[in-house]
C-alpha cells in the first residue's frame, strides 16, 4: 500500500534534501573545497610549476619567492609542486580506502543484518575484535606488517574503516527489515538478494553516504599520519604527511615547509567533515537541529 505512491514522494524528498543541503553554507563551502582539491589532484601534472622530485642544489631551503611561491625544501624541490602532487596521494588514499571499506563493510552489514543467526554472530564478533583496537594503532600495526607503500597504506586504512560501515549497515538493515515495504517485497516473491539490493540498499544509502564522506576525512588524516611516521608512501613521492615529517626538523630555520602541508591537510579534513555533516543534516530530517 505504501509502496505505490512512494515514487513521487521520493522525488519530492530529493528536492527537499537538495534544498536543505544548499541552505547549509558551511556544507556548500566544504563541497567546493573538495571539488577544487579533486581538480587540483587531477591536473597536478599540468598546473605544477616544477617536477616535484626535481632537486636543485643551488636553491636549498629557500623562503617563498616569485619562482617558488611556497619556498623550497631540504633538497631544493619546489614545495608548491609537492603540495599539488601530494593532493593526488592524499585524495586517492582517502577515496580508494573508503571505497574498499564501503563495499566490504556494506556487504558484511547487509548479510549480518538480513540473514542473522550464527552468521550475524560471527561477523559481529569479527567487527567487535577490529573495533577493540584504537583506529590509528591498528592502522599503524597493519602498515608496519604489510610494509611501507601507498597500496599497503590504503589497504590498512580500508581494513580499519570497514567495521564502521558494517555496523551502520547492519543497524539500518535490522530497522528496515521489519518495515512493510520489505515484507511486501518478500510476499510478492522477491529473492533475498533482490530484496537486499533493490529495496533495502537504496533506502539506507543516505546513511552510508554520510558515513563515507566522514570516513574520507579520517582516511586522509590517517594517510598523513602513516606517511608522517614513515609507513606511507616512500620518497621521493610527495605526500603531505611525509612533507610535514621532514619539515618538523626545520621549524626554526624554514617554517614555511611545515605550513603548506599542515594547512592543506587541515583544509581537506575540514572540508570533508563539513560536507559529511551537511549531508547528514540534509538526508536525515529527524536529525536536524535547526
Amino acid at each position: 500500500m505504501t509502496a505505490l505512491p512512494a515514487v513521487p514522494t521520493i522525488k519530492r524528498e530529493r528536492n527537499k534534501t537538495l534544498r536543505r543541503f544548499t541552505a547549509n553554507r558551511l556544507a556548500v563551502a566544504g563541497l567546493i573545497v573538495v571539488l577544487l582539491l579533486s581538480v587540483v589532484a587531477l591536473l597536478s601534472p599540468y598546473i605544477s610549476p616544477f617536477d616535484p622530485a626535481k632537486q636543485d642544489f643551488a636553491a636549498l631551503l629557500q623562503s617563498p619567492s616569485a619562482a617558488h611561491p611556497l619556498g623550497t625544501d631540504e633538497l631544493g624541490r619546489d614545495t608548491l609542486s609537492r603540495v599539488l602532487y601530494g593532493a593526488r596521494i592524499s585524495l586517492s588514499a582517502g577515496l580508494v580506502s573508503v571505497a574498499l571499506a564501503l563495499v566490504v563493510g556494506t556487504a558484511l552489514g547487509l548479510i549480518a543484518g538480513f540473514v542473522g543467526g550464527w552468521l550475524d554472530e560471527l561477523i559481529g564478533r569479527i567487527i567487535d575484535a577490529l573495533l577493540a583496537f584504537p583506529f590509528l594503532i591498528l592502522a599503524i600495526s597493519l602498515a608496519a606488517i604489510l610494509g611501507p607503500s601507498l597500496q599497503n597504506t590504503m589497504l590498512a586504512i580500508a581494513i580499519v574503516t570497514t567495521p564502521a560501515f558494517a555496523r551502520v549497515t547492519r543497524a539500518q538493515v535490522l530497522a528496515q527489515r521489519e518495515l512493510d515495504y520489505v515484507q511486501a517485497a518478500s510476499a510478492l516473491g522477491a529473492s533475498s538478494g533482490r530484496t537486499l539490493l533493490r529495496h533495502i540498499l537504496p533506502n539506507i544509502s543516505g546513511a552510508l553516504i554520510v558515513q563515507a564522506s566522514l570516513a574520507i576525512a579520517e582516511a586522509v588524516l590517517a594517510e598523513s599520519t602513516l606517511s608522517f611516521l614513515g609507513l606511507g608512501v616512500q620518497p621521493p613521492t610527495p605526500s603531505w604527511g611525509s612533507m610535514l615529517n621532514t619539515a618538523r626538523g626545520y621549524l626554526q630555520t624554514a617554517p614555511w615547509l611545515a605550513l603548506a602541508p599542515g594547512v592543506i591537510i587541515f583544509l581537506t579534513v575540514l572540508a570533508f567533515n563539513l560536507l559529511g555533516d551537511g549531508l547528514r543534516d540534509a538526508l536525515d530530517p529527524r536529525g536536524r537541529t535547526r
Partner: protein
Amino acid sequence: MTRTKFAPPMILGLTLFLSTAAAETLIVGLDADPPRLDPALSTAFVDRQVMNQIFDKLVDVDEKLKVVPMVAKSWKVSNAGLTYTFKLNTGIKFADGTVLDAAAVKYSIERNLTLEGSARKGELASVKEVAAPDAATVVINLKVPYGPLLAVLSDRSGMIVSPTAAKKSGADFANEPVGSGPFSFVSRKRQDNITLKANAVYWRGKPKLDGLVYRPFPDGDVRVANLLSGAVQVITPVDPKDVATIQKNAKLDVTTFQGLGFQGVWMNIGKPPFNNKLVRQAFSASLDRDAINKVVFLGTVKPAAGPFPPGTPAYSAAIRVQAADLAGARKKLAQAGKPSIPFTLLTAPGAVNAQLAQLYQAMAAQVGFNVKIETVEFGALLDRADKRNYDAVMLGWSGRPDPDGNIYEFFHTGGSNNQAGYSVPGIDSLLEKARAQTAMSARVATYNVALGKIVDDSPYAFTYFTSNTVGNAKTVTGLRLVPDGILRFYTVDTK
C-alpha cells in the same frame, strides 16, 4: 669571576655557594639509550660514551690518536711483536674499594676473551695468554703479531672491571657496572637517564664535576630542543641542519671535528644487477660526493675516497676521492649491456638517511639507474644486510683508531662487516700482512695496494667520512676533541 670581585662579599659568597652546590652536575643528551654498560658485551657506540667515564682503560688515545698511558704507565713490545709488557700505575682503587692491580687487568682481558656473548673475542683473537708476574706488571703474549693491539686496548677491550663486582653481579654486571674511572655508576632508568657521581678518590685527582647524567634523545630535533631550552648542557651528535641554529645562539657552542668513521653504500655482488663490476663502478661514479657534503651536511663532513679519514694514521693522499663522472658511468652501463637498471636501495629511518637516499636516487637516475628506496628499521636492515638479502644498502661504520678496524672485517673473506660477500684471495693476504706489520708506513703501503683493487672492484661506494659534532652551553669548558668522538668528562668543568 672578574665581575664578582666588585660585588659585596655576601653576594660573592652566595655565588660561590651556588656554583659549587648546584651547577656541578652536567646533563648530557645522547642519541640512544646505551643498551649494555659492560665492556665485554657492549656492541653499541653509545655505550662507549658512558663506559669511558666509569672504567679506566689500560691505555688511551689522545687528540692526535696517539696511544698514551692510562692504567699502564709504560709498555714494551718485544719478541718480534709477540710480547707486550705493561707496567701499571699503583694506588688505583675500584669504586667498590678493591684494588686495581695486574690480577684485575688479567681478569678483565680474560673475561673479554671468554665471557659468553663477548663482542671482544674478534679483536682479541690474536691473544694467546695474559700473565701477571707481579702486582704492577702485565704481560700479553700473542699467537701472531698484531699491530692494532694497543689501539684495541684503548677501547672496550682495555677497560678494567672490578673482578669482585663482576663475579658478584654475573650476568647483571651491565646494570651495576663497577670500574675505577673518574665517575662511578649510581643508577639508571631505561630510556630515561643514567646517573653517575664523581669518584672522590680517583687516582688522577677528583674530577671537577660532582655528577654526570646521561639522557637519551633518539630524535635529533628533540635533542637540539633540549639543548636550546637549557634542559641539557651537552649533546652529541648534532644533526647537520641544527649546527646553524646552535651557532646563532649566544649561550651555546657547536664543534664539528673529524671522526674515524665512513659512510657509503654496499652493493650486493652476489646477485644482479651488482654482480657486474661495470654496474657497480657506474653507480659509484654517478655519485657527486662534494654535492652530498654540501647539500646534506652543509659542508661539515669530508668526501670519502676509502675507509681511512684524513688525519688518521693510514690516510693516504694517493687514494683520491672519486669525482662524479656521468658520461663515464653511462658508458659503463652501455658496456654492461644494460642502459637502464632498476634496483632497491635499503636505508634506515631518519632525516639524514632520507635525504641521502633521495640524493643517491636522483644522482643515480642521471646515468640510467631506476632506484626504489625502501626504508626499514635499523635492526631489520642489519639483519637483511648480514643475510645478503638486498640490492644495495646504506651502511657505514663509526670507526676505530687503528686502521685495521676500518678495513679488515669489511673486505676480508667472511669478515663480520663484509655485507657484500666480497672475497678476493689477494686482498685477504694483503689485509693479513698489514695486520702483522708494526711500522705504520709499511702498513699504509700495504693498505694502498689493497685499496687500489678494492676501489676498482667497488663492492662498496665510499661517500663521506663522518664528523663528530658536539653542542654545548658556553659555560662548559675542558671538552677534549678526541677523534673517536667520545667525550671524556674527567677534565670538564662548568663556570
